[in-house]
């Protein structure tokens, strides 16, 4: 049994406008996605413009892993602590402080029990490298060249 109802022209128009808005939002999302995916991002690298705020005591022959941390993010601090407590053989595990425009204070640095400690003062991690997830691990070879990005666990 077909239950047809009478709807006014205004409501019909409003309905079509609503669906047109939904499709336009999807198209806009797709356009943003296309721009983001086709943008050429810089390859991460150790050294300037990153600021070294704590040096590693021991040198490493196998390379350096840096956990991207924000001092206000409890989860990524825990991820760093777990990885620093059991570093993979021959690797040194440090941290890259991201999304922190002002130089981290002594209390924030004390909470980061790892070395080396780099501070991304210019926000390159997000703006030029295109990375966005805290707690990821940036892997560098012994010469400081970027190898890959992975998860802490």
């Amino acid at each position, binding site marked *: *049994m*077909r*239950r*047809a*109802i*009478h*709807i006014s022209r205004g*409501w*019909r128009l409003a*309905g*079509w406008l*609503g*669906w047109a808005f939904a499709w336009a939002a*999807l198209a806009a*999302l*797709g356009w*943003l*996605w296309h721009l*983001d*995916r086709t943008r050429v*991002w810089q390859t991460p690298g150790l050294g300037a413009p990153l600021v070294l705020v704590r040096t590693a005591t021991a040198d490493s022959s196998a390379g350096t892993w840096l956990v991207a941390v924000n001092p206000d993010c409890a989860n990524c601090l825990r991820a760093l602590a777990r990885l620093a407590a059991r570093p993979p053989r021959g690797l040194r595990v440090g941290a890259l402080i991201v999304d922190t425009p002002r130089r981290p204070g002594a209390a924030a640095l004390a909470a980061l029990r790892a070395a080396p400690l780099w501070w991304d003062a210019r926000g390159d991690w*997000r703006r030029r*490298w*295109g*990375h*966005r*997830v805290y707690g*990821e691990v940036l892997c560098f070879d012994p010469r400081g060249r970027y190898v890959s*990005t*992975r*998860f802490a666990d």
Partner: protein
Amino acid sequence: MDSSAVTLAAHAAPDHHRLHRMNVFLFLIALASWWELGLRQGGELGAGQQLNLAVAATIMVLARLSASAVEALAYTLWWRTRGARLPYARFFVALVALSLVDRFAQSLVALAGRAPALAPWLAPVAGLQLLKDRLPAVEPDLWVVFGSLGLLTLARIAITAWLQSAGTGRGLRGPLLVTTLAWLATRVALWWAMDLFRGMSPLR
């Protein structure tokens, strides 16, 4: 309306009531099921240390109810613009009841996690995500977005379409097309949103 149509309508009404009563029953089971899953997952994530487990489970149930409420509203509005009335409350109850299909799929995925040898056999039913380890070249976000595609997902789409067809009194073809397109559109939107969220960072 001729006499045969009146007879059909008289038969159809009790059927609709019976279907609704069954959906209310399944609705309650679905709530209990999602609550139980919330308690279990909250416990596994250590929520008890910082967040009351009951609160975590309630949040999960409310999230499911909200998702079904929005889905029901979208279809109801769609059919309203097409000149057909889809009873919102009944359709919402039916969608929550139908979420038991998702819950069953999740149980099968968990079963495959405990017994990996079963994964290839369960994948066509529970979703392609069970083949993830065998196809490492596929992008991780595609697994997240389309990993649930399997016979249970297809059944969910078909039943959602049938509920609209029964609710509006229209044929099955239109509702099936609308539901499939809506599923595809939300999956693609999720894919793009996840990519924008992570940027060049990897997905787990």
